[in-house]
């Protein structure tokens, strides 16, 4: 029963085997440690010259990766905690994302920046955030997030093969999730549709008429599908789930299709609520499909506490999703 971590690790290995332009760089990524979350484990042993452990220099890690990408390599940079992406904001926004367009499409910048995100590990205010929302809607920058339903390995390989910069966000709790395909039966109540393209969106359609659509990404899919099962079993409320792999640019067609069926949208994310991912999803959905009802589940607009009980109160949990879905269904 493969877990997401293994698939990501495999993707890096596969990419390095099949394309000699692929290089990894990041803090503490050498064996035997293999990176803070072990995504790069084994790779420095297999490719000793192509796995570069760096000083603690997040801005320069991404900056150097940008330069490598401009000169024909395919660097994959790891930022140890997504919270530190703030230090790379200038390189992402004013360099990586801009080069192609401002140089009149004469260059491509095939860089991937990977970063673990998310809370519930008791790491406190500066090591638990979901800051991806800061980087959504940056022209020229893609933001991609794996989940346990699609293959994280394919997704990461696609990001590495992408000619444009990709910020690849990995939730810390997702690493140890087993892949859905291997969790037999769990999704048997849904018919699954998948979009074409490198970063597919998945629509999970229940057997009975759905009362609402839940949009989500990444680790939150784990919570959302538990919520969906609970709603189905205990309340006989059926929901459709739209699970995105590509957050930015926003490409919401599958969601619109679902909303035409349900007319009600619940967005779920772990980042803070205000101007989170769900804001754009809701705004776009409403602009497109006037009259639909929307609701958002997200973290409270607070830093994330270290203590577990506070952290739990701040981050959105399974019950928050269920409650919001019930409220929305009842409207």
């Amino acid at each position: 029963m493969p877990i997401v971590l293994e698939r990501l690790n495999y993707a890096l290995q596969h990419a390095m085997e099949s394309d000699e332009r692929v290089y990894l760089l990041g803090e503490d990524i050498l064996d035997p440690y293999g990176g803070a979350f072990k995504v790069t484990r084994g790779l420095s042993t297999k490719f000793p010259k192509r796995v570069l452990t760096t000083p603690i220099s997040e801005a320069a890690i991404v900056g150097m990766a940008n330069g490598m990408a401009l000169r024909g390599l395919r660097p994959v940079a790891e930022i140890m905690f997504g919270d530190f992406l703030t230090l790379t904001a200038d390189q992402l926004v004013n360099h990586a994302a801009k080069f192609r367009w401002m140089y009149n499409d004469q260059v491509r910048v095939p860089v991937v920046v990977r970063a673990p995100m998310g809370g519930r590990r008791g790491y406190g205010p500066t090591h638990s955030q979901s800051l991806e929302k800061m980087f959504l809607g940056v022209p020229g920058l893609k933001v991609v997030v794996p989940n346990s339903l699609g293959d994280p390995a394919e997704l990461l390989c696609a990001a590495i093969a992408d000619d444009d910069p990709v910020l690849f966000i990995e939730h810390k709790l997702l690493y140890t999730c087993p892949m859905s395909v291997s969790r037999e039966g769990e999704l048997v109540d849904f018919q699954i549709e998948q979009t074409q393209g490198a970063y597919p969106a998945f629509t999970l359609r229940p057997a009975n008429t759905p009362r609402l659509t839940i949009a989500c990404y990444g680790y939150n899919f784990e919570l959302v599908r538990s919520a969906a099962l609970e709603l189905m079993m205990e309340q006989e409320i059926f929901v459709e789930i739209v699970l995105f792999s590509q957050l930015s640019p926003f490409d919401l067609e599958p969601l619109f299709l679902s909303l035409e069926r349900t007319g009600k949208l619940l967005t779920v994310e772990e980042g803070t609520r205000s101007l989170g991912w769900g804001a754009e999803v809701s705004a776009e959905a409403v602009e497109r499909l006037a009259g639909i009802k929307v609701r958002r589940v997200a973290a409270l607009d607070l830093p994330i506490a270290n203590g577990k009980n506070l952290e739990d109160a701040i981050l959105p949990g399974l019950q928050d999703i269920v409650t919001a879905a019930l409220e929305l269904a009842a409207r």
Partner: protein
Amino acid sequence: MDNNLALFKTMLVIRRFEERLLAEFSAGKLAGTTHVSIGQEADAAGIFSVTDPEDVVFSNHRGHGHFLAYGGEPYRLAAELMGKATGVVGGRGGSQHIHWRNFYTNGIQGGIVPVATGMALAEKIKATGKIALVFIGDGTLGEGALYESLNMAALWKLPILFVLENNRFAQTTPVEKGVAGSMPGRFAAFGIPVWERDSTDVLEIQSAAGEAVGVVRSGGGPVSLIIHTHRFSAHSKGDDPRLPEELIRIRQFDPLIIHGARLSKNDREKAEADAISSIDEAFLRASADPLPGLTVEVPASDVGRSNLEI
């Protein structure tokens, strides 16, 4: 109290506190992560023996020792690590994000340095006579914000001591892989004088720190203090690439043994008993404390409510 005994006691409390912490983690009684300074206690003890209680301190992820040497209570730190309402910051910050009196920590490498430099500027402006201290590790020499701060501290002759604790490793990265050129050169390039010691002897560190702090306090502008030391434990928990032999070898630099030799057996044993019992009590008391409730205060436009006066 006798200087030698006081230094020993400070180091011992740090050691026993952090050992207890690791034990609690292993027993599954604490969650999250933590970075202990076992092996480096002489830095904290030596430095805070020569500072003023009112001086302003910014410490980093490896800050328990600094906090305790600064005068922080083991009980409140233990409570903080347990996420209790009675913790230093009510369970919100945990190991890396605390504040008490003029002591502050944050978990972002390098980012604390400009903040501490701004604090030094504030104290200079207010003419309080306080100086600022900021703690970094060898790995933090990688962060650009450090150099921006060194430049400004030097340009404006700010009363700040940059303490570099070089424990030869940044997480799993040895200095050879992380730091090019020369450590003192990094400060000297900005015209900042350097005090440097390769030692875990608290008396040596105390004397170097005393000189360095003296220069800063007398208006000499920023100074750096580089201490080459050894970390005995893993970076946080279990992330240690060093060989067992190496871990045994560096135990010869144990500051408790080096300095303990200067004390009588009686003093040592008494200190040991005190440390153990005070830490036992701290953990016991903290563990009985309540968890905090969530008070969601949405920041309002609370203009003019400042309680901070110069």
